[in-house]
């Protein structure tokens, strides 16, 4: 490995420090013992904010639970719509090699439009239409809105995977006696799985993260976590938020580390197989 000079190491550390300093502050303050209304000074270590978080004080846990529920439903529904849509459009495009493709082009841009329209416009539009249709359920409104902007992530991810695939795979399966439903089950879906998973994770992150659209859409009662945090900022952030954020950061780190680790294991295994091949 190349040795880094002292200068470059120092610079790198500085960059990382600037990037992670806010996060470190949040984590440190989540253990702050100071119970002042706006606790600026660090007065000592304590887990009191974690305790009150898990006691459900301040409603943060409820908001998190709503966010998770909405995100999971949105990912599930948009996963199905996005995947099937991508498969259908790709197959149409293949048949359509000989047809004019303008219809598909229009369809495709319409599917991906929600991620290009400013969120504030989408949010406003949802609010208007939900009110006009009399859809009142908080969760239903949130899920419907989230599905709309989650679909493109799954759709684009699956579609790019399908387009890059050898089309004769599907012909071969038909040729070997599989009905089109069976081709979908045995060939198309398994081959799309990595794309479905990565698209869904992106959609999950987008849904969990969304503030603007949710803010317009949610009706009576508590909002999702971002809304809850935003509204509590106005009355002064409770250190409970710090505790919650620290836990979410920890979860993100663990998740990232795990996926790196699994990736490395997989790579090692396949290169071992490769070596087995050449040693023959």
């Amino acid at each position, binding site marked *: 490995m190349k040795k880094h000079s002292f200068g470059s190491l120092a610079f790198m550390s500085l960059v990382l420090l600037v990037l992670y300093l806010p996060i470190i502050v949040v984590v440190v303050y989540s253990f702050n013992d100071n119970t002042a209304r706006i606790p600026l000074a660090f007065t000592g270590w304590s887990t009191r904010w974690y305790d009150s978080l898990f006691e459900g004080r301040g409603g943060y846990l409820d908001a998190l639970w709503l966010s998770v529920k909405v995100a999971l439903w949105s990912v599930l529904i948009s996963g199905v719509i996005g995947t099937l849509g991508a498969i259908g459009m790709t197959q149409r495009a293949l048949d359509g*090699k*000989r*047809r004019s493709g303008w219809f598909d082009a229009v369809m495709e841009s319409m599917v991906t439009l929600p991620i290009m329209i400013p969120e504030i416009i989408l949010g406003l539009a949802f609010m208007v239409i939900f009110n006009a249709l009399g859809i009142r359920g908080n969760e239903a409104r949130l899920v419907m809105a989230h599905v709309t902007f989650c679909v493109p992530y799954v759709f684009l991810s699956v579609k790019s995977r399908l387009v890059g695939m*050898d089309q*004769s*795979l599907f*012909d*071969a*399966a*038909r*040729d*070997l*006696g*599989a*009905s089109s439903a*069976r081709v979908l089950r*045995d*060939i198309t879906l*398994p*081959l799309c799985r990595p794309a479905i998973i990565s698209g869904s994770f992106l959609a999950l992150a987008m849904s969990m993260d969304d503030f603007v659209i949710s803010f317009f859409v949610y009706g009576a009662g508590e909002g999702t976590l971002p809304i809850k945090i935003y509204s509590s900022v106005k009355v002064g952030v409770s250190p409970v938020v710090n505790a919650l954020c620290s836990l979410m950061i920890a979860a993100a780190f663990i998740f990232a580390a795990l996926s790196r680790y699994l990736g490395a294991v997989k790579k090692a295994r*396949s290169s071992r*197989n*490769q070596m*087995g*091949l050449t040693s023959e």
Partner: protein
Amino acid sequence: MSEEPILRLEGLSKDYGQGMVLHSLDLDIYPGEFLTLLGPSGCGKTTTLRLIAGLEQPTSGRVFLEGVDMTDRPPEKRPVNTVFQSYALFPHMNVFQNIAYGLKTAGVKKAEQKQRVEEALALVRLSGYEKRMPSQLSGGQRQRVAIARAVVLKPKVLLLDEPLGALDLKLRQEMQAELKRLQQQLKITFVYITHDQEEALNMSSRIIIIREGRIEQIGTPEEVYEHPKTLFAASFIGQSNLLRGTVSRYEENGELTLNVMGVSLPALSDEPRQKGERLALCLRPQRVRYGSEPQHGMNLQGIIREKTYSGGMQHTLIGLNDKLTLNAITQASELDSFPLGSMVYVGWSKQHAPLVPDSELNLDQAEGVL
């Protein structure tokens, strides 16, 4: 071939909306044949194969297998299997699962699946490779798995779409022999697609030359090589001197004289011709003889313009006049000692220089032309 055809294509046409790809193709294929569809890319041969497999629907015409109309049957219900050009092995299944896939969809029991996959692997000499993933196989091995996957179902007809196209020359020659052996062993009818005329000549029992969606000629390798029926067939199969000219003399016994760029060439026709008719004489370079005495009774002279020695053979260019040049190929064992520029007598056996109707064909675009 008086027996019933196993596969009959009747007036098969295909139009993708941008002009006809196939023009009313009629073809009978007999049991046990190794039939090759030969033609340049885009001639409609892959379309024909896909129509037989059911992967495309014909615009008009019908496909019969053993007398049963297959035209409206989906591909999964046709007793034919395909070896795809890209092999199309399922990347998420290992070799065993790939080969067993067709058996699985057919509902064959596990024990029988195992046994038949083993047999198929033995047939393509890949026993013991069951657990490998396609990504861990070489090109030739993938090819064999693709063949095993198709033949394990014991199809009535095996369709092969340029299966050797992606392999290098040496491997291709090996696989040619392998495929021939397989075909004889399995006694399955093969419909084979290639644009490689040498491959077609080597392997087939019958060759169909296709050009722009129409059959140009059907015949055994020997027939299409020795007796091309069209200028395209002559130019596509093997090397030829294609001498295009006008009939200046015709006699009842078939003897005629063809005027090619001011040179009068004697020829023999097996059909009646007329004076003034435009014909092309197909003269294989291997058939051209030259020497210090008249050859084959012809009074034809030329000048040796160029000599190239290339591994066991000598290529010679002989100018008959300023414009007309003949290609000759002689075995290295019969090397001549004529220096460049010397006058020689040129001739050939007239029986082995067939005449075909001249057409508007642009020879520069046809493959395999000298």
